Every structure is written in C-alpha cells, then in structure tokens.
C-alpha cells in the first residue's frame, strides 16, 4: 500500500506540491471593530488626559485655522464688490480688504504652526506613554501569561496597535476642523445667497451617498492590497532568513513558484485597490463641474439681473473648490476609528492581564543575614486545573547545602525551581525561603537573595561587562573581572576583540553555548545571592568548556545554598543530597551512594 503511494509520487512531481507554502502561515487578526466603543475611548482618554491642555490648544488652533480658510473667499468677495468699483471709496476699500487678507494670512500661519506642532507632538507623546505603560505592565504580569503568549504577538501589540492609535489621535483633532469647515461652508453659502446656496449644495448629498456605497468595498480592496503586500514581504523575509535551509533542502525552484503566486496576487490586489482609489476622482470632478455650472448659469443670470453681486459668484467658485475635501477626510475617519477601536481593544487586553503575583502589604524585606534555607511544605501546584504538576512535595534544603533535583522530563523539576522564585503561586502548601513564606517576602528582596541560572543562558545585546553585572548595575569592573576569573570565563573574554567591552550580538549569538553558560555563571556570582537555583544545561558542550563549567559550578556553590536540577553525573555525585521527582511526586531522597545502593530510578534517569 505504502509502496504504491510512493510510486505514484513521482508522477505528481510536475504539479505544484500540495502542501508547500512560503511565508507566514497565520490567521490575520481582526482589523476593524465597532466605529465607536465608549469603554475603549475612555481607556484611551486616560492616556490623552495628561495632555488635555495641549489638546485644547490644538483644537483651538484647528478652529482658528479653519475659520481663516473660510474667511479668505469672503475677503476676496468684499474686495471685488466694494473695492473694485468705480469711484473714490473703491481703492480705500480694496486697501482694507488687502489688509484684512494679510491679517488672515498671518493668523493662518500661526494657527497652522501651532496646530501641526502640538497635534504631532502630543500624539507621539501619547503613543510613547501607551507603549511604556504596556511594556511596564508586562514586566509585572505573571509568567504563566508570558508562557502562553508568543513574543511576536506581544510585539505587534507594542508596535502595530500602538501605531494605529497614533493615526487615530492625529486625525481626530483634525477632523474637528473638517466638521467645522463643512458646516462653515454650508452656512456661508446659504447666508451669501440662500437660493443659490441651496442649489449648489444639492450635489453634496450625492457625494455622501456615493462615498457610503464606495467605502466598504474600497476599504476591503485597500486591506487586501495591504495584506498581500505584507505576506509577500513576509515570504521574502523568510526566504532570506532561512536561505541556508532552503539551499540545503533544494527548495529554490518550488519556493520561487510559490513566491510568484504571492507576488502576482499582490500585483492584482494593488491594481484593484488603485482602481478603487482612482474611481472617486472623476466622480468628484464631475460633481464639482456640476456645482460650478449651476453657479454660473443660475448665479450668472441673477448677476445679470442685478440680483447678485459678482463677488459672491467668485466666492462661491472658491468654496466649491474646497467643499469636497472635508467629506473625503470625514468618511476616511470612519475607517480610522474602526481600526483604532480594534487596536485599542487589543491594547486594553494586554493592560488588563492580571498581575497574579503581587507583594502583599507589609511584605518583609529579605536580608542577607537570613539563614539561606529553602523549604517546600506540602506544595501543590498546577498550571491548569486538574493537571497537577507537583503533588504534596515536601523537602528542606539546609543552609549551605547543595541538593540535586533529578527526574525525567515532565516530572516537575523546573516548576519546583520556579516556585522558589515565586514565578507562580502555589495552589496548596507553602514555599519558604530563609524561614519565611515567599508570599510574605517582597519580590525585589527575594530576587536579590535568590540567584537563578537557567538552562538556556539568555544574554542581552550589549557588552559582556553589562551582561555580567546585569543584576548589580553598580558592580565595579574589578568585581566583574573577579567573577569572570572565578568561573574561568576571563580567558576567552580577553581573547575577544574589545575584551569586556566586546559587544554581544542578539542573544549572545557570537558566543558558543558553553561560553554563554560561563557568562551566566559569572552573572550569578556577581549577584552574590545567598541561594542559588540552577538548571543545568542538557546540551552538549565541547569537553574543555564542559570541565570549566563543572569547576565553575563548584565555585558558584561555595558558601551558598544550592538547588540544582542536575543532568550530569558529576553534579549529582557532588551534591549533598539528591531528590528524585517523578510525575510531580517526590519518590526518593538521599545521597548518591544511598540511592545507588537502593537501585532506584536515579540510575535510570542519569545520563
């Protein structure tokens, strides 16, 4: 059966492979929400409110700006009808008109300056504040949330969603101006001449209706264009980042065809979007033409009959050139708001994530003179209800003692370690550090007395020096070098160009795993905590570095209480006591020789 299937494969190979894809394989998030959601607006307002003075100034400037724009055709009208007439008064009136015009221009200049500066800067400030609040909140939320959530998703909250709020903030202030301009033009036209005004304005509803029908499909077309563009770019990025694997597995040909599909789909959607964008041009132009024709025929006849001043006609013609602009931006504002509401909802979602682990009021500050013991007292723990990870675990690590935790994958070792640092709350029982329940200790002081070394050493971009004194930013250079020497990292650091000032690439990419491990040891040594919690790396490291690490580990544990998730025989042998976990239960404890004598599961679980 399976051989038949395999034989058939060769025939299919001319066709495009059924499952292959290039680029991201992910559902898009919802982009548009309700246009107005009071709860979200309220939350956003909380960020805007510190700048409300600026916002009021901006709104005032926008209004002033709009009024000068409205006034200018009126001044021209005045200049024509009272200035440009035969007789002595004419020239003086013209002079007045030009002076008024000049004044308007100066006001316009000032208002536009203030408006754009204030709106631009205030929106940026709000945006940065929002991002900061979100980022700062993420520093506090429980790790179980962080475990569940991909970094990429959070990053798109912090970047994409925040940016779409900026657009919303900027255009919201400006659309105040648009509304005023729209009503202003209507008002001025009707008061200049009611009948002519009404006739001219009759094209406006037409545009409104057309825009309403146009909006939905056009927006979809724009979104499609946007999406295909970013998926095509995503596929390109993937092709570049994975180029070695692509060449290794000889996928160039297949990928090229798939990419062509994406790029071509992008071309099609871009052209469709372009059609939708451009189709409004002749419609607006036609309506403008109709409005102008109406003014000329009706207004002209009235002027001939001396029922209307010629300047009014000129003013009408000027207003007509402008009066579709506010309609255009206001209908656009609708989409901007929808987008902002859905981004806002997602931002609020992040801000609302519970901070499960909090200092209780009057939390104790753990000091260095505590005894350094760690105790688990009937600890029950689960990430999800009904899936217990630790069941009634009790043990005590005495001050200065090193205890190795061993057990198969999934036995709960890593969770136990995380509980010492109160990354999560226990469901039952208690974890005690220095004799105090961790829930009674302030998190900051707990962090200071418990140093952790994780299995995958995580280094930050920056110099080696900064990384080693990550915990104690004020540690002296000498202290850092001392620690590096103690763990045997000094030599390879000095061999790097720049030594301690050498820049680490993202996540320490320019160091080997073993070297990163040593640096993370040095970091723990500088932290100089009374208790060390360490998850030994399972990964293979070249033998020389490996031995360095073993030595460094002894150094690190000197004079400290150690709780080590051990994978290596040497570490297990060196421990004062061994605790064996299986399926969340403690099944054995004792020193190496005792356990070997018992012939229990230690032997099976060590490598």
């Amino acid at each position, binding site marked *: 059966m399976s051989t038949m299937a395999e034989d058939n494969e060769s025939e299919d190979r001319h066709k495009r492979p059924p499952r292959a894809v290039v680029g991201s394989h992910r559902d898009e998030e919802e982009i548009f929400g309700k246009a107005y959601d009071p709860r979200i607006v309220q939350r956003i307002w909380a960020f805007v409110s510190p700048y409300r003075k600026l916002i009021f100034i901006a709104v005032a400037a926008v209004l002033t700006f709009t009024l000068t724009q409205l006034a200018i055709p009126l001044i021209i009208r005045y200049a024509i009808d009272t200035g440009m007439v035969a007789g002595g008064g004419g020239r003086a009136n013209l002079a007045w008109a030009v002076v008024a015009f000049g004044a308007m221009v100066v006001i316009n200049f000032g208002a536009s300056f203030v408006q754009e500066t204030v709106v631009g800067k205030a929106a940026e400030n709000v945006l940065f504040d929002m991002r900061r609040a979100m980022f700062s909140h993420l520093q506090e939320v429980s790790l179980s949330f962080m475990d569940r959530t991909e970094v990429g998703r959070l990053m798109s909250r912090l970047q994409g969603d925040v940016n779409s709020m900026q657009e919303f903030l900027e255009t919201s202030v400006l659309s105040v101006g648009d509304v005023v301009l729209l009503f202003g033009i209507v008002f001025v036209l009707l008061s200049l001449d009611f009948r002519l005004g009404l006739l001219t304005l009759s094209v406006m509803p037409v545009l409104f209706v057309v825009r309403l029908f146009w909006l939905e499909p056009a927006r979809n077309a724009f979104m499609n264009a946007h999406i295909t563009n970013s998926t095509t770019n995503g596929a390109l990025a993937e092709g570049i980042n994975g*180029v070695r694997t692509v060449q290794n597995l000889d996928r160039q040909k297949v990928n090229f065809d798939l990419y062509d599909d994406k790029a071509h789909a992008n071309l099609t959607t871009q052209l469709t979007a372009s059609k939708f964008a451009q189709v409004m041009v002749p419609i607006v132009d036609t309506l403008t033409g109709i409005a102008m024709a109406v003014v*000329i025929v009706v207004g002209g006849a009235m002027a001939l009959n001396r029922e209307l001043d010629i300047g009014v006609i000129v003013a009408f013609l000027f207003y007509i050139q402008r009066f579709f602009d506010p309609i255009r931006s206001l209908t656009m504002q609708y989409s901007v708001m929808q987008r902002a509401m859905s981004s806002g909802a997602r931002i609020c979602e992040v801000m609302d994530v519970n901070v499960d682990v909090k200092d209780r009021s009057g939390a104790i500050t753990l000091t260095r003179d505590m005894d350094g013991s760690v105790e688990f007292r009937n600890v029950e723990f689960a990430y999800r209800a009904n899936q217990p990870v630790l069941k009634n675990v009790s043990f005590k690590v005495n001050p200065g003692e090193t205890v190795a935790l061993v057990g198969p994958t999934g036995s709960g070792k890593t969770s136990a370690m995380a509980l010492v640092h109160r990354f999560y709350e226990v469901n039952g029982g208690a974890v005690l550090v220095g004799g105090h329940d961790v829930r009674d200790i302030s998190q900051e002081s707990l962090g200071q007395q418990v140093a952790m070394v994780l299995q995958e050493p995580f280094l930050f971009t920056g110099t080696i020096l900064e990384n080693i004194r990550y915990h104690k930013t004020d540690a002296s250079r000498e202290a850092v070098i001392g620690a590096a020497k103690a763990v045997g990292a000094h030599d390879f650091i000095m061999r790097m160009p720049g030594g301690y000032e050498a820049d680490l690439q993202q996540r320490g990419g320019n160091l080997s795993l073993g070297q990163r491990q040593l640096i993370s040891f040095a970091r723990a040594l500088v932290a100089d905590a009374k208790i060390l919690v360490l998850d030994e790396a399972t990964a293979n490291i070249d033998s020389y570095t490996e031995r360095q690490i073993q030595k460094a580990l002894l150094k690190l544990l000197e004079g400290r209480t150690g709780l080590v998730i051990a994978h290596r025989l040497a570490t297990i042998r060196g421990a004062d006591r061994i605790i064996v976990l299986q399926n969340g239960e403690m099944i054995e404890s004792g020193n190496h020789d005792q356990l070997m004598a018992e012939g229990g599961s230690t032997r099976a679980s060590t490598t």
Partner: protein
Amino acid sequence: MNSDTVGRARARVKAPGHLVSAQWGQGLGTLVRITRMALRHPWQVAIAITATMIASGLQLAIPRLLGQAVDHAQGIIGGGQEAQSALWISAITLLVVSVLRGLFTLTQNYFSESVGHTIGYELRLAYYEKIQRLSFAFHDKVHSGDLITVGMLDLDGVRMFFATGLVRTVLLSVLIGVGAYLLISTDAVLGLLALSFVPFVAWRSSVAQLKLRGTWLILQEKLSGLSRVMEENLGGIRVVRAFAGQKHEMDKFDAASKEALNLTHQRVNIRVRNTSAMTFSFFFSMGLVLWFGGNMVIDGTMTVGTLTTFLTFMTILQMPVRQLGMMVNSYARASTCGSRLFNLLDMDLGIDDAPGATDLKVTEGTLKFDNVDFTFPGSGGQKALSDVSFEAHAGQTIGIVGAPGSGKTTLAHLIPRFYDIDSGSITLDGQDISKVTLRSLRQSVAVVQQDSFLFTTTIENNIAYGDPWAKEPKIERAAESAQLHNYVMGLPGGYDTVVGERGVSLSGGQRQRLSIARTLVLKPAVMVFDDSTAAIDAGTEHRIRSAIKRFAKDRITIVIAHRLSSLMHADFILFMEEGKIVERGSHEELLALNGRYRALFDLQVRPGEDIAPTPAEASS
C-alpha cells in the same frame, strides 16, 4: 494587521549604506535603468504620459473658463439673451472639461501606478530568485536584515519612481510651464506676482523632503533599538525576573524610547516649519495679486473675470508645487535605492552550475576527498582546511571530532557545494561535484544543520520541507525515527500545529529532532549530522540512532559531534585540528594510538578529575 513583518524589517533598517554605497554617476545610470524597465511596457507608459498631458491641459483651462464666466455674468459682452446663452455655453464647457479632467486624471494615475506595480512585481521575482541562489559566502557576509530592507523598502523606492518621479515631472512641467506662459502673456506683472510663490515653495519643499528622508533613516535605527530592547526583554523575561531586573529594563526602555521620541519631535518641527512657511508664501503672493489686480480692475485695465482666472489658477497650482519636494525626493530615493537593488541583482552568484553540467548519477555511493584545501573568502588567506583526504562508501558511518573551529562543519559544507574549494577535488562516484548540476548534487547530499531554520508553518510542512510531495505516513515514519512523533501527538494540533517564529516555539532539542526528521524524508546518498544531537539527551539520541540504522544501510552517514558516545560506533573517525586531519581510525584504533582522541575520551569519561588539556583544546 500583518504589519509586523514590515515593522520588523523596518526595525532592522541600518541605513544599509554599507552594503553598497551609491555614487552620483551611478545614480544617473540607475534612473536610466528604471526608465528603461518602465519602457518595457510601452503602451501603459504612453497612455500614462498622454493622459497626464491632457489632464494638465484641461486643468489649465478651468481658471480661464471660470474667468470668462465671471465676465459674462457681469454682462461685459452685453445684456439679455446673448449673455444668457454665453453663460450656458461657459457652464456646459466647464462641466465637460471637469468630467474629462477627472477621467484623464484617473487614467493618468491608474496607468502610472500600474506601470510601477508591474515593475515592482518583476523586481520582486528577480530579487527573490537572486537571493535564494546567492552562495553561503555571500550570506555569511551580508546581514539578513539589510537584505530584507533592500527587498522591501528599496524596491518600493524604485517602484514608485515612475509615478512620483517621472509622471509628476511631466505634470508639473506642463502645469507650471504652460500656466506661466498663459498668465504672463495675459499680464506680465500680475503673472509674475502670481507665480512668485513657486520658486520659494519648490525650494522649501525640496529641502524639507530631503531632510525628512535623512532623519527617517535615523529614526528607523532608533526604533529598531527600541524594538530590540522590547523583544529581548520579552524573550528573556525569565532572566529579567530571576535577577529582579525590571527596573533596569525600564531604564533601558526609557532611554531607547526617549531617543526615538526626541527624533520624532524633531521631524515634526522640520515638517511644520516648512509647511507653514509654504502656506504663508502662497497666501502672500495671493495678497499681492489681489492688491495689484484689484487696482487694475478699478483702473479698468483688467476685468474681474481675469482676476478670478489669476486667483483660481494659483489655487490649482498650489498643491502640485508643494509636491515638487516629493518629486525631488523621488529622484533621490530611486537613485540610492535603485543602486543598492541593482548591485545585488547584478551580483555574481558565486556558486552556480558549470557550463555543460550534467546531473549527478549515484551508483555505488563513494565519496572521495582528495587533497582538499579551502579558504573562506575574505579571511585573509588563512586556510580553513588543508590537505584533507578520505574516502567513504555507502553503508559506512564516519565520525568527525575536534575542537570548535577545527574545520568540522566547514568540511561538511563543502560536500553539497555550499562553498567551492581552492584546490584538490571532491568526487561522488567519480564525478567531480563542481561539474554536476547543483540541484542533483544537493538532492543527493543532506546536511542536518546545527541550528536549522523553522519555517512558520505546520510541523508536517516543516518535516516535508525538502520533499513537499511526501505523503503523511512517510512524514510520520520520519518523525517516529527522529523521536519526535510522541511529542507531536501530544500537541493539541498534532502535525497541523504551526511552529516557527510566530507559532509554538520548540526547544533546542525538539528543533534538532525536527531537522533530523526533515532529512529522513529524503533519500540522500550522503547524510551529514552536523552536531545535530547536541541538545538531545543521550538516551533519546541512542533511540534515534537505532531507529535510523536501517535507513543508513545504503548511504554514507557523517556524524560530527563533541560527545564521543555519539560517534564511537563509526566505521572510522577523523580527528581534526586547525583544518587538518591529525588522527584517523576506528574508536579502538584511536584509543590505542594514545593521542589526542584518547585524551578527549579520558576527559569525557572521567570529567571530575583534573586532566591536562590536550594542545588542541587549550588553543581552542
């Protein structure tokens, strides 16, 4: 919104100037080349340009028609019926001109955009193909973020040149040129006054655009710094918490954030100063026209209609003149972006099929290295491998061991021709690998890399990456052999679970097992495990090894590892040091040799004891 891809790429913008720097002479050549690309679509270009000229002509007619209409309404040509019908004629002409102007503007915009998008499409394909085929040596040298930037942002710069550069040049020349002629021929003084804002606005807008472009690049760099801080923090949140580093992290964030914010404020300032000044100068000219024109009307040397023509003409010209800056910017952008892009497109592939290359035919499966020397390009002539010779046959397992940097991976990368050797030869069944087609070679050689890339797609697709036609049972079998199946079945989505950058993240060991499964789907003649079990515990590794025993029967297996237990069973082992094979033989033979291999073995078996490092290790 899937803006994070873009965001990410932008975030990596490092003003990729160091990639290829553009010179002025080259810039001109670039613009010519883009224009030529556009001309490959002669009909679309012709329609776009013609429509542009007609549209701008119609645009110019409107102020004049309005002026005439105003004159008619004033009854200048006489009263009654005659004036009435003149008004009707003006109105209808105006309507027709407006409609036509709209239609031609649509045509202009649509066709110029479509030329741009078509060029963009062609360039995307060419770029993608090129990047996928450029050799490892190239990719080692160039930062992937820079390549993404070129492929997205530079490509956009080139694509938009036709619409925002060339077509706009035609539009503005007609509007300003013909407009100026019409105005000045109507009245020289008033015409000059009406146009007086043009040079100032053109200058300011060009300066502003160029300045904004400069600061944009810096801003992207700052934003990339900020997103790096955030990304690292979120990725390393456990370390942050473990060391109570929140405060320190907030300080880092604030510093990066502040820098970016300051720069955005600066950019607001640049923009505002210029737009306000431009508006001011425009209205200033208008005031002058109103004053002098008004006086002429009073003196009876000009009609109100003509004055209206002047004023409406200014209104019409305002927007395009403000866009002059964008046009200038478009030229600047296209020439720098284009130079970078074209330099990449024109680049030599480095490694390609030799002329007349034939497909590799694997018969017995014999791999032979014969006095191979190899130097990394740009390493200053220091040999990465020298005088490497060995021979392996189907069914054999070869172990390679040595200190980091001794050339193990390099050796493995020569077999599928990721790099070309300096001298000597590598043959598969007697065929020199540099003389066979790359496709056939790479299909026959599979390397399980140390750090292989996960694509953001399902686990199934990832395993079948090298053979997307593979059927499910085959994929599952491969996953079973790689000891991945049970883990996958434990995932809620099973084989349909999406992994990769935006999916479920796999641990180092799981990634390595997936990458082994990927290779097991293929049927290579040579299979290389490049330290690809480093993050897998010894027990699992043992199970993998027994599972693939049958698979390894008729092919050559090369195992590179630090852990001797991974390769002790090999038919023969090569011990490498500084690019040379210094010891070779089976495990027993090498132990008996009492050399470096022996020292390494002792070190691993008795790690707690103090043993003097071998010379190789001490120098690593």
